[in-house]
């Protein structure tokens, strides 16, 4: 009984971890290349959710069927666009300034996106119910239950992560990204435009965060301009846990965090989150580089 029970909590944890993972990748990508902790990353996720919200509502009003792939592209595009713009407008000028200035700017961009969004009348500072455009189907293995939402979430996350791995490992662009993480001067000597690579990194990271926004809206159907703060912080923690700068590490860290959070709650609901972070502290005491942080050569 208890074993099957743990299976249910494991499914819950994987579901939560898959959303953290998509956000954590963006954190780690950007950090790997320009050593910037982009605190605004959680807000790209929020904007992805709002882009999906408006597109779905618009399509439903037009009596069209909102296909999830199309909505996913819209969310990713929104996340990518905002990520690209925030890099161009805010971060680019600080590239060779002290790193702390860029960090503070990232916090500023984050707050700007949250408060600006909540000031737009069409969005506002209150919760919005996210439209349920896919009807839910329940499945069960023994006494453990899951739904088509969880299948959609986890499979979209995995597909996106596979595509990203392919790009980074097997394309010239990916090679340039890896190279820029290792040695920027050598990269320039090879005639590669570093700024272009950084733009692309932000676009990729933003797109993944936007996708996570849609998935989160689907599973937890209420959205808010401040919804990115907590998942953003947790994804950052996941990236650090996995060894910041390492994509595989970020994904692993996200699943570890999601699952340990859920198990923490199942042990005791009041101190659950504390248990999850006690694990984090222990890992960082014994492995200050994070779980996979030692292979510095692979950093992207």
């Amino acid at each position, binding site marked *: 009984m208890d074993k099957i029970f743990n299976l249910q909590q494991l499914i819950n944890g994987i579901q939560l971890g898959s959303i953290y993972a998509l956000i954590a990748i963006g954190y780690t990508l950007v950090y790997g290349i320009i050593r910037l902790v982009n605190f605004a990353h959680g807000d790209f996720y929020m904007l992805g959710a709002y882009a999906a919200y408006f597109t779905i509502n618009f399509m439903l009003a037009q009596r069209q069927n909102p296909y999830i792939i199309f909505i996913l592209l819209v969310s990713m595009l929104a996340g990518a666009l905002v990520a690209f713009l925030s890099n161009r407008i805010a971060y680019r000028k600080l590239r060779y300034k002290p790193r702390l200035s860029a960090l503070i700017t990232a916090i500023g961009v984050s707050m700007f996106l949250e408060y600006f969004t909540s000031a737009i009348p069409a969005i*506002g500072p209150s*919760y919005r119910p996210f439209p*349920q455009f896919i009807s839910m189907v329940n499945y069960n293995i023994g006494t453990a239950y899951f739904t088509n939402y969880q299948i959609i979430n986890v499979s979209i996350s995995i597909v996106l992560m596979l595509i990203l791995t392919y790009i980074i490992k097997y394309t010239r662009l990916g090679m340039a990204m890896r190279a820029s993480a290792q040695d920027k001067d050598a990269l320039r000597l090879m005639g590669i435009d570093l700024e272009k690579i950084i733009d692309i990194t932000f676009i990729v990271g933003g797109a993944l965060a936007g996708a996570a926004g849609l998935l989160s809206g689907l*599973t*937890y*159907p209420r959205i*808010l301009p401040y*919804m990115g703060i907590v998942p953003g912080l947790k994804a950052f923690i996941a990236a650090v846990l996995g060894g910041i700068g390492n994509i595989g590490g970020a994904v692993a860290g996200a699943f570890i965090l999601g699952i340990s959070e859920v198990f923490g*709650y*199942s042990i005791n609901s009041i101190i659950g989150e504390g248990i999850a972070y006690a694990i984090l502290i222990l890992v960082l005491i014994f492995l200050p580089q994070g779980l996979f942080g030692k292979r510095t050569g692979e950093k992207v």
Partner: protein
Amino acid sequence: MKKVVVLVLLVVALLSTTLTGCKTSSEPQTIKVGGIGPVTGEASTFGVSTKNGYEMMIEEWNAKGGVLGKKIELVFADDKGDPTEGATAAQKLINEDKVVAIAGTVMSKVSLAIAPICQSANIPMVSPTSTNPKVTQVGDYIFRACFIDPFQGTVGAIFAYNDLNAKKAGVLFDNSNDYTKGLAEFFRDKFTALGGEIVAFEGHPAGTTDFTPFLTNILKGKPDVIYCSDYYNDDGLMAKQARQLGYTGPFLGGDGWDSPDLVKIGGDAVNGSYFTNHFSKDDQRPEVQEFVKKYTEKYGQPPDALAALGYDAMGLILQAIQNAGSTDGAKIRDALKNIDYHGVSGQIKFDAERNPVKSAVIIEIENGQQVYVTTVNP
């Protein structure tokens, strides 16, 4: 000659300033009453309904000529559902706007932040919907228009045990919120006292969107009913996630469920659930039906309990000012203590703790609609 002209001009100037000065320092032409509510933030539909209730009551009094021969002016402030914002709003209303009394606010945790400010300024405060017992214990200037958590949690437990025939119940609440925690505890105590079993008593942190770990713990005990004492936007998510985990039974909640957004977030998952409330628009008393009709004409949708209690809270204040014959804080307070008010949410009289003694209604959600089930008397 020139000197005389200057002198005359000076005298005229002096007189005119003193005269106009007299005019501005004379009694204000309106009576300012404060209103506080969360029109933005996590409980925004509560705030909007409450504000509508305040406004409607004031308009009705003004149409009859106001109170003590003066028009009433509502000075409204948004607390955003946040205790700090609420405290700032109350200080602004008292110190800058010089209101004579405050109707507010909706959420217990925010009212608990506002009440000490009103108490120390000797400004009577009537909370429309803060059901946590601690609110009026702050001091003798603090009143409320609604019943309190022990009653609501107790009624919920009696209804679950007797009417739903539930023997096992799970409880899920927000651990950081006095209202939902209070309700959950009183439900637990009464349900156990009746002979029922609480299979799990789970508190989640504020801002949670994934309730599956808590619900999984609750469902392990195979409950007949799940008591969710949160506000509607959390309750909707909880119900949905519980259904995803295979739960098919009913949910039961408190007045925090009362919002049109509940069904938008929870969808089909909330059908067949029950909650205790202060007011039902299907109540056939003529004053309720008249209120429902006027409210619907003015705001384009029928009133919920928040609107009814906002309306009654403001009504209590205005009636008390009228009875006191003064805008002095202490006199309004004394008038409130002795009031016997006929409100749309029931007959209101205060007990020694300044809590009204009144009835509760049980509402069921059927196909996304609220259906009146029964009225429970104290």
